[in-house]
């Protein structure tokens, strides 16, 4: 009996110690050297805790699916590594009529997954399918500048007048007014050409089929479990992709992902627990194969400009100056970076010349004084006399940052009353007019351009009584005019000047106090070659190739760690 008790205790203790204190095992090495030629074959294993809801460009309703759509659906245009628009199915295009007409010339011979050739008719059909009001497309209105969009969206016509077929390989898009971000928006997955099997109108039962480098494997989408793609041999870029396939597994929690990565069952990992991330980043065997993705997200404190005390610009300026962003960053130092401007640094349109919102407590107190709310930190007297409800949602990072923020703003006489709700409630209340004085704001680029932030977040037309994307309800005609002008400005240089001006206004008038950006760290196995983080899609599947020593079946047991060793260490004997 004593031996059972002793063995059980030892087992539990050992398990705990080993689980807490183990180093990261060595990765499985590459087979070839640095200059090894790319080889075809292999399936890339990816995992996520999140799941996808649909596999249709016309229903891009979650944050995970765009990279899968990018793999399956080629567009007329795409984004390159700097986020610039480059040709894809369209080998070239012309811009005429002062930016109101775009004519695309398709590549001849580009094939869908079903073998049919991609034609201009397919482009028009796919655009109409995705933008028809019967489709659950959450981004349809991004194309409202297309001629005839309003009539089409109101079901007054069955055809979208602004998209015209001018031959088998030429398609023309007509806009009512110049739209400088039409091309970046077109590069998003929503209106990418779909096979004829998709039909003219959206249906929930269609089996995804496009012209991208990968196609859906037979029964390849097991909902809630996994998605399997295989190489599309008819892909127009000959020789690509190199992988035989890609498999995403869903609902895999971070701990399981970490286990799978170190066992060689996962090839690229992104969703780390903070301690695991530190372990991988500090391990010289893994570090060369890890990198941060582009920072394409802005976070800040959204202050409701229609409600006191934030209807006073001086109070907003005080908040922007009272936040010590470095302190906030330390809450999750592995992923957060200090951010002091409205546009993240990795997004085209970011301008380092825009003055930053910086931590300066004396200046913050001065702003409070200017607002008529002078506060004396020594006596604690003055400031805003009422508690300010501050809304956060459960299980978000903001639940933690709210505590630090409350302490920082208390130093200038603003007392936050933190109210924690669930995410849907948070969204409903924060986005409702005259409801929440202050709440965290966050936004991720929809397309790589400053206007992806400046337009939806702070223009007057983005204000709505319900579901407002302008959560600070900030309204400034001068700012609106700059953004509108930038949207119509075809010259890159002039547009940049306009967006810079608009950013300066935001930094000064502070509808948001900008705080931090979130960067994902991606750890790849050494044998995953040509893996680089793409600024929009995250992972560029068409370039990656697998160079794994021992093939897919090799586990780290071959490289120094072995189940038997552990068995022996636990039970004191070899398994029989």
């Amino acid at each position, binding site marked *: 009996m004593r031996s059972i008790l002793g063995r059980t205790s030892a087992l539990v203790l050992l398990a705990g110690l080993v689980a807490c204190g183990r180093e990261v095992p060595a990765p499985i090495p590459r087979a070839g050297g640095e200059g090894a030629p790319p080889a075809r074959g292999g399936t890339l294993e990816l995992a996520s805790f999140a799941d996808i809801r649909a596999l249709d460009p016309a229903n891009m309703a979650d*944050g995970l699916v765009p990279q899968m759509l990018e793999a399956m659906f080629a567009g007329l245009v795409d984004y390159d590594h700097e986020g610039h628009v480059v040709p894809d199915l369209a080998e070239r295009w012309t811009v005429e009529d002062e930016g109101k007409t775009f004519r695309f010339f398709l590549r001849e011979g580009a094939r869908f997954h079903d073998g049919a050739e991609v034609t201009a008719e397919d482009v028009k059909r796919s655009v109409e399918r995705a933008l028809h009001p019967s489709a659950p497309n*959450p981004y349809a209105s991004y194309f409202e500048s297309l001629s005839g969009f309003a009539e089409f969206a109101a079901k007054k016509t069955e055809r979208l007048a602004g998209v015209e077929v001018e031959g088998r390989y030429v398609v023309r898009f007509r806009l009512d007014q110049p739209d400088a971000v039409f091309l970046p928006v077109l590069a998003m997955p929503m209106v990418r050409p779909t096979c004829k099997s998709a039909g003219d109108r959206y249906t929930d039962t269609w089996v995804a089929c496009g012209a991208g480098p990968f196609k859906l494997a037979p029964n390849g989408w097991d909902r*809630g479990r996994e998605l399997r793609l295989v190489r599309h041999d008819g892909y127009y870029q000959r020789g690509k992709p190199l992988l035989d396939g890609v498999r995403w597994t869903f609902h895999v929690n971070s701990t399981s992902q970490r*286990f799978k990565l170190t066992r060689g069952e996962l090839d690229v990992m992104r969703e780390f627990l903070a301690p695991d991330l530190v372990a991988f980043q500090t391990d010289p065997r893994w570090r060369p194969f890890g990198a941060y993705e582009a920072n394409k997200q802005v976070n800040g404190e959204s202050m409701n400009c229609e409600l006191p005390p934030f209807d006073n610009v001086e109070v907003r300026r005080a908040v922007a100056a009272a936040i010590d962003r470095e302190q906030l960053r330390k809450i999750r130092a592995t992923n957060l970076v200090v951010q002091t401007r409205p546009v993240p640094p990795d997004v085209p349109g970011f301008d380092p010349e825009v003055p930053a919102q910086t931590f300066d407590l004396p200046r913050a107190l001065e702003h409070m004084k200017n607002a008529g709310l002078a506060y004396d930190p020594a006596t604690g007297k003055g400031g805003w006399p009422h508690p300010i409800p501050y809304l956060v949602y459960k299980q978000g990072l903001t639940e933690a940052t709210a505590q630090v923020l409350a302490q920082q703003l208390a130093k200038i006489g603003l007392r936050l009353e933190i109210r924690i709700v669930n995410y*849907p409630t948070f969204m409903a209340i924060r986005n409702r007019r005259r409801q929440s004085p202050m709440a965290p704001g966050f936004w*991720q680029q929809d397309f790589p351009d400053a206007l992806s932030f400046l337009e939806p977040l702070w223009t007057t037309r983005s204000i709505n009584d319900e579901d407002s994307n302008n959560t600070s309800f900030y309204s400034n005609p001068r700012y609106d005019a700059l953004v509108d002008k930038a949207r119509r400005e075809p010259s890159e240089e002039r547009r940049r000047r306009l967006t810079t001006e608009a950013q300066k206004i935001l930094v000064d008038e502070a509808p948001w106090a900008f705080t931090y950006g979130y960067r994902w760290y991606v750890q790849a196995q050494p044998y995953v070659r040509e893996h680089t983080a793409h600024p929009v899609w995250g992972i560029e599947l068409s370039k990656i190739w697998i160079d794994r020593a021992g093939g897919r079946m090799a586990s780290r047991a071959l490289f120094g760690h072995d*189940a038997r060793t*552990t068995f022996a260490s636990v039970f004191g004997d070899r398994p029989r």
Partner: protein
Amino acid sequence: MMERIAKRLAWSVLVVWATVTLAFLVNNALPSDPARMVAGPQARPQDVERIRKSLGLDRPLYVQYARFMSRLVHVGPFEVAAGDAEHATCETFGPVHVDFGKSFQQRRPVAKIIRERLPRTIFLAFAAAFVQAVLGIVFGTIAAARKRTFIDVLAVSGSLLGVSAPTFMTGLLLQWLFAYELHLLPLDGFGDTTLEHVRSVVLPALTLGLFGAAYYTRMVRDEMLGQLGQDYVRTARAKGVSPAGVVVRHALRNALVPIVTILALEVGVLVGGAIVTEAIFRWPGIGSLSVSALLDRDGPMIMGCVIVTSTSVVLSTVVADIVVGWLDPRLRRER
């Protein structure tokens, strides 16, 4: 007996209806917007509005409720023809159709999604209940039979540890040891073949089972100690029945009555989903589905999950009644 069961089943329908109605009202009373959850946090208001209309969320609440209840169980064709929009979201049982509507998020019939997931959840629930019952009864009985010995202390302490350890900790520990280090079982998932399903259920069932077994050990021990002090046990001993016979054939059978009741209820609750365990082991059951539905304010899916959960709990009480009556004939006569 049959009349009694029929009455209980009729009562069950009322209970399920009340639960569903309450869930419907609570879900719609919350300050949140299902259409926004479908469209995503960055969709424009005009797109959110269009989606709201397409989901029927712009209609008055009583219209939505009336439509849902009228469709919930109805009569229709034996087989739904392709393209029959009226019955496209139905699960058919002959002419009887069950229709929970279409999930806002997944845009698939809720009844179909539940049909896919329910067998996996029931599989896990019964596996976990089996572990709980076997371990709980064995350890509880031994502890009672060996009262105030080292075994008793070990069983009581072990059960205390088991009850105190949260499932996320037990689950991770089991996963780390048996799957990650020893490679004996799959890390997570459900597998594709029957053998893989069985291998995959071991760790989640153990995780749930160890927690429940600890509880049952204590309960069986206490019940057994109560029974072992009864007159009929003394009589049995006096008549020369072996110690094992006294414990197993006489005391244990009587001690099982309350335990079976709780175990049946436990199965009902487990069918509602073991949320944490499903998350750790990526078990594609009702628990993770319910949580996602709730977080996404997916009304039809929430309703479907509530109906499954409440029905399973209510039915399990009926089953418990039957089993208890079988175990103890006195109860059959009293009722």
